């Protein structure tokens, strides 16, 4: 049986699933409930000088019938007195000594950093996470992402904390920056024991088009918020990969951003995360999702023969190359399985209007099964992505796998297009229809411009 135990820079937890610092970790009540449900650790809602929040704090992006695929908040750090939070941390640790309780911190001066470090350590926290990520409100006051965007400042503050730290220090990074590895390296240089990423992305999730004000609406006005939830996962994973592949980022990484199920967690771990943190999914579905998370991860590990999380960590990293190192000889083409096709013809319009005119409609009126015009297919995958039937369009390999030639190879050999009408252009001998042919095409009778 796989061992789900996790160890991030010395902070141990029964499994790699932590609650991220956010409303689900607002109180001892919630954290106890989460541990009881099976969560391995919790990063407490960020502590500091308590704030005053606005009412109407969240907005969301719904996609068709899926709610909250993206989630946005304008909430600040904790609004509860430090004293109460510390007492509850102690209480939780007493009841759950093997679970990880991390105190998330955000203060301003060196003295405050030192003071709060001492207090949370005394309360029994297993580690701290420095919140350099919050992209709204706190950054206007010189904290949060204002620090995370300035690697020098970030490094200085980490070193202040490290002056007094007796427990591991995690540095939480903001994604609101062009190159995530710069603050990551600064965290290492400041002496940080781990980094965690990503915090939320600056965002506006929508505009009330009747009243001309973005969401969430606070008395007729709004402000930018921080974006999270499933929609940010691809951005988080790319940043995670950038840090994990950087040789100067020598400390472990806690992965955050859009994780909702065990598959997401596995992906993060394969990209180099030591553990993962979850917020939006819990705000959406509650602590109970941990049952699916741990079960799925355990089954996956058993199936693959991984004993520990470390066995699988970073396994996808060697397969992430620069574009110039990809094999230009690799060739796939789309293939439609007529037994599965339901005749929606979405692949046809996708390729016809959005790709390479490599799909033809059936001439047989009864079946509507399109066909691939192989010589036009560049193997872009688009049709297979839009097809609503699982495994109906597959991409079939056409090269024999014996040849490898990359852009880097071609560059070295002086074999790349360099002039505007270069004979070496990739699309030169690729068939494209004549522009005027577009107007000769028969279109369905109801595809008329409205008002015609």
């Amino acid at each position: 049986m796989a061992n789900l135990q996790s160890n991030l820079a010395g902070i141990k937890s029964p499994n790699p699933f932590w609650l991220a610092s956010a409303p689900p970790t607002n109180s001892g009540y919630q954290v106890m409930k989460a541990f009881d449900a099976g969560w391995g650790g919790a990063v407490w809602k960020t502590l500091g000088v308590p704030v005053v929040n606005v009412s109407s704090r969240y907005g969301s992006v719904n996609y068709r019938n899926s709610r909250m695929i993206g989630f946005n908040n304008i909430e600040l750090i904790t609004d509860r007195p430090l004293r109460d939070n510390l007492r509850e941390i102690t209480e939780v640790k007493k009841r759950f000594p093997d679970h990880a309780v991390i105190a998330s911190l955000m203060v301003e001066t060196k003295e405050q950093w030192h003071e709060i470090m001492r207090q949370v350590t005394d309360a029994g926290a297993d580690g701290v996470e420095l919140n350099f990520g919050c992209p709204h409100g706190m950054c206007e006051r010189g904290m949060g992402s204002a620090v995370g965007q300035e690697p020098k400042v970030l490094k200085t503050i980490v070193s202040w904390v490290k002056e007094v730290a007796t427990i591991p220090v995690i540095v939480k990074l903001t994604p609101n920056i062009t190159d995530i590895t710069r603050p990551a390296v600064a965290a290492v240089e400041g002496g940080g024991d781990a980094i965690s990423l990503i915090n939320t992305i600056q965002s506006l999730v929508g505009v009330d088009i009747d009243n001309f004000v973005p969401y969430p609406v606070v008395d007729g006005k709004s402000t930018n918020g921080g974006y999270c939830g499933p929609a940010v996962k691809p951005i988080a994973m790319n940043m995670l990969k950038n840090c994990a592949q950087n040789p100067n980022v020598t400390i472990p990484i806690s992965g955050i951003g859009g994780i909702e199920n065990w598959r997401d967690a596995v992906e993060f771990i394969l990209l180099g995360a030591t553990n993962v943190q979850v917020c939006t999914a819990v705000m959406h579905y509650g602590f109970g999702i941990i049952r699916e998370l741990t079960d799925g991860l355990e089954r996956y590990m058993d199936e693959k023969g991984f004993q520990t999380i470390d066995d699988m960590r970073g396994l996808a990293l060697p397969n992430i190359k620069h574009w110039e190192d990809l094999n230009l000889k690799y060739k796939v083409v789309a293939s439609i399985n007529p037994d599965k096709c339901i005749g929606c013809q979405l692949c046809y319009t996708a390729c016809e209007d959005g790709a390479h005119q490599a799909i033809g409609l059936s001439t047989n009126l009864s079946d509507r099964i399109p066909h691939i015009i192989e010589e036009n297919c560049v193997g872009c995958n688009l049709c297979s992505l839009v097809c609503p039937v699982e495994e109906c369009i597959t991409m079939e390999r056409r090269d024999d796998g014996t040849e490898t030639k990359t852009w880097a190879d071609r560059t070295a050999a002086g074999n790349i297009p360099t002039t505007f009408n270069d004979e070496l252009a990739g699309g030169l001998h690729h068939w494209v229809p004549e522009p005027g042919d577009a107007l000769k095409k028969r279109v369905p009778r109801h595809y008329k411009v409205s008002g015609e």
Partner: protein
Amino acid sequence: MSEFLPPHTESDFESNFSQLKPLMNSTEAYYESSRCLFCYDAPCVNACPTGIDIPLFIRQINSDNIFGAAKTIFDSNYFGHACGKVCPTEVLCEGACVYNHSDVKPIEIGRLQSYATAKAIVADKLFYTPAAKNGKKVAVIGAGPAGISCACELRLHGYEVDIFDSKAMPSGLTMHGVAPYKITNEDVLDEMAYLEKQFGYRLFHNTTISAKEDIDQLQRNYDAIFLGIGLGSTSELNIPGEDLENVFGAVEFIEELKIHHHFVSVPKKVIVLGGGNTAMDAASESARMGAERVILAYRRSREEMGAYDFEYELAKSVGVKGMFNVSPVEIMSFEDSVNQKVPFRGFRVKQRH
């Protein structure tokens, strides 16, 4: 066997005839519209006799452009609301939906259609205004779907239109012939009022055009005449006993029921002759009116019935029993022991071999 007690009040009637395709609420409409794939050259459109751009109106619903959706529907079909409810969608648009090929429930196109159009009707959102008068007048005979649609179209081109109908209310079959569980009279009349308001044709009710003189007169007064006369009476059986008391044509029975609801009384035992959709309706309706035994007798096999399968299934679901390969030869009546006239004792039937 009776599932339904004879209705004594309008609310009994409504519950016995609860709507098969009830109006969606906005959440249901949003979820259902989300499933539509927006197929290219969509088979549902091609299966719609009026060619409504279904993927377009569904996408409009999904992006909360409900009036835009309603306009898309009415542009192709002035009876957009009624059709959403009464069309045999199972064999038309929904039957053609690509989801059927992956054994996934097809999109509920009919209900989405009624959802969007009902919103426009309730909000009194008017989309059409007649064109300036072109000086021509057309007489339309029959205020059913064909006649009304014709009138709407003519009004858009500037014709003056007078519609003549023998009934007291418009919409022909929709009002008088469609089973009450498919659409309510209010819904029918609301859509009629909505159209009349926008297109401004004149309706002359209780006006039967039957004699040659009537036609001659119309020909004198109008530039053209449109015959929109779909709904006829039930065909005759031509067997003895057909004119006995309590022997009705299905069309007449349904009409009676549509107009008088719970005031119609249906006896305990009913036999319906025929295998078409009207027969199925009459049988279902008898059962829903509290008849304890309803037998549907058809002269050929079940497979040969003209009715849609789902209509027969619907009748069976309310307890109707099918009897096949039997032809009636006579309807008989007799007087019982206390000299009360019993309308008929039964049929003599001939078994088909």
